[in-house]
């Protein structure tokens, strides 16, 4: 286990030795359960305690508390205050010892090769995330922790449930550690012009930091978001979303039916309608304060009003991008952008969902700016050409390969829009007339590609193309394309994907001289 090159780390906590998180961590992690228990106890004893301390408030003749067997009565009747206090004290002592032990046994370290966390008292766990497989680093500030100036870091690994959490750290520590992790993962130390390794020491550290700022190695100010989403637009977009309309319709229909004499329908309609609306409010709250900006180590995505989350997605971690437009957004020309990425935790669907939205609602201009960050290989003119053709209903001189006329019965509405295009190293799929969609798959990330054909498609001599990417909300499938053309396209995509993957160096993105594994072999 090598310590990281001192020139690459800024935080004293990422020096390759074991460190402990902030002492308040166990309270924040286990504190919620404790608060709930305490809350239930207090809620039940509230009136008892109130009447005990202020007996004159008690309504005369109220005898309902005078039941035999009540522990509080028993204590008062037998004057066992000492015993009761000792009992309470014992519970507190056990809790404190438990928390202290949990804190003592919870350690983490950041070495030149990976990030490790050890935790647990009886059941020890030891998690490790190799740095060259880091898929992203999230900095989350839950509502309560924000007041205490704390934050948690989550290093997203490649496997399922491969995430390593460092919680909780002081905000400043968390930020510097995140920068360190990304710098180590970027492969900067492998670069030919890597900073010479000097001895540590405070003075050297300070000098390095200053020169870093001067050289522009570390931006003194964070770059601003490339999009600015007005609250008005976010709210309006949510109101025009099909889920909101569905929720309102369900509620209204439920009320009308109930008024007509079947009141039991409310038991179904009200929860369903409120559920849909509640989901929309949640989406809205998350999309407030949304920002997306470039950093040297990837794209920084920030969102959340109460719990704020900052994620840094290193280059080459975007596996598929989808642009969608519900029908009612069309007059305003708004689109929403989602991505497929490795999240590392399958269970937390909600969390994965919110991180997958990289633009809640934006104009075509903003979509282009966001895509420029996510798929840097797709340069300006190509991106604009692709967007022009991909977002329009059916452009003249269409560069997309669409459903042939003979098979229009299979796609009665969308046959002129339903299409696929291979643009050097990006596979684009265009679908839907009512609900327009455009899917972009960077071929360097494509896992495999399939041709499929069912009996009906065979009658029309058409076939479908499925691009397989990591799990996520984006599904890259297109059907009913001319058989010969799509077979040729399938061959081309496969060849292009192999070339793109062989040339891809994004696993060590800052290491300009990095060799692909093939070159090393």
């Amino acid at each position, binding site marked *: 286990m090598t310590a990281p090159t001192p020139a690459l780390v800024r935080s004293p906590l990422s020096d390759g030795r074991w460190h402990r998180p902030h002492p308040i961590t166990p309270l924040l992690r286990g504190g919620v359960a404790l608060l709930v228990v305490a809350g239930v106890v207090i809620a039940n004893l509230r009136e008892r305690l109130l009447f005990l301390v202020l007996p004159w408030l008690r309504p005369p003749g109220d005898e309902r508390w005078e039941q035999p067997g009540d522990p509080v009565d028993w204590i008062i009747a037998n004057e066992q205050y000492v015993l009761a206090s000792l009992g309470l004290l014992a519970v507190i002592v056990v809790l404190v010892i438990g928390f202290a032990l949990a804190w003592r046994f919870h350690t983490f370290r950041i070495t030149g090769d990976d990030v490790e966390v050890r935790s647990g008292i009886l059941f020890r766990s030891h998690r490790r995330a190799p740095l060259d497989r880091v898929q992203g680093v999230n900095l989350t500030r839950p509502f309560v922790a924000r007041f205490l100036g704390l934050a948690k870091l989550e290093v997203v690994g490649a496997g399922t449930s491969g995430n390593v959490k460092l919680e909780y750290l002081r905000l400043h520590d968390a930020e510097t550690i995140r920068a360190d992790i990304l710098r180590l993962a970027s492969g900067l130390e492998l670069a030919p012009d890597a900073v010479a390794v000097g001895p540590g020491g405070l003075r050297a550290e300070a000098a390095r930091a200053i020169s870093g700022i001067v050289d522009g190695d570390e931006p003194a100010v964070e770059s601003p978001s490339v999009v600015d989403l007005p609250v008005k637009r976010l709210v309006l977009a949510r109101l025009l979303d099909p889920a909101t309309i569905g929720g309102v319709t369900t509620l209204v229909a439920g009320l009308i039916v109930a008024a007509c004499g079947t009141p039991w329908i409310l038991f179904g309609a009200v929860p369903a309608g409120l559920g849909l609306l509640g989901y929309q409010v949640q989406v809205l709250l998350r999309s407030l304060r949304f920002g997306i900006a470039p950093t040297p180590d990837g794209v920084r995505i920030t969102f959340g009003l109460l719990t704020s989350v900052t994620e840094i997605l290193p280059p080459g971690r975007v596996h598929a991008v989808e642009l969608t437009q519900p029908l009612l957004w069309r007059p305003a020309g708004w689109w929403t952008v989602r991505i497929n990425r490795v999240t590392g935790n399958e269970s937390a669907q909600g969390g994965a969902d919110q991180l997958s939205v990289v633009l809640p609602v934006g104009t075509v201009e903003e979509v282009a700016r966001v895509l420029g960050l996510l798929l840097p290989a797709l340069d300006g003119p190509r991106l604009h050409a692709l967007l022009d053709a991909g977002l329009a209903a059916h452009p003249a001189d269409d560069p997309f390969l669409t459903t042939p006329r003979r098979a229009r019965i299979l796609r009665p509405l969308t046959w002129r829009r339903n299409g696929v295009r291979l643009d050097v190293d990006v596979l684009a799929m265009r679908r839907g007339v009512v609900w327009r969609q455009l899917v972009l798959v960077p071929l360097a990330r494509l896992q495999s590609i399939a041709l499929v054909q069912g009996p009906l498609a065979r009658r029309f001599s058409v076939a479908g193309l499925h691009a397989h990417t990591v799990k996520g909300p984006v599904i890259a499938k297109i059907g009913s394309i001319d*058989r010969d053309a799509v077979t040729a396209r399938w061959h081309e995509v496969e060849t292009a994907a192999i070339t793109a993957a062989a040339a891809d160096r994004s*696993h060590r993105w800052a290491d300009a001289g990095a060799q692909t594994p093939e070159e090393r072999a």
Partner: protein
Amino acid sequence: MLDADTFDRIREPRSAGRLQPGAGAWHRVSRRYLKAQLLSYGLLLAVVVVAVTVATLVLGQPWPLIPGTIAVVFLVTMLVILPRQVRAIGYLLRADDLVLRRGILWQRVVAVPYGRMQLVDITHGPLDRHFGIAQLKLVTAAAASAVSIPGLDQAAAEALRDHLVEVAENRRTGL
């Protein structure tokens, strides 16, 4: 090695509109795989028939006839289409990727670049072992890839795994 005791050619749909993923040295699966599949479905059919007969005639319960009939129809259909289905499985080892084709009514052709393989897995159940066959699975980072080649001769499966591991090693990339 890979072609010991396999079917002579790959069965394709008859329609002119079928998928034609291209010529090449397509490998087929073992003839013994068909026997193993027929035997396993046949045994299942026998068990269902016996169970339903006993329940109806000996115990005097008429209701098992309903699920029993459904199961028998399904199993007989499977037995009828199995020989076609098994003959439609084929794989092609190209310079940089593996191509797998399956299915007649629903054709599926998947190409997996060697560099994308996360692991190669060989499984064989008791019946497979008796017939000396095995199933080889390729896992990529995408669950949808789902590439599994059933019914390989055991020696062929191991040779293929070693070959795949070797070529994947030279082409390993990130996710």
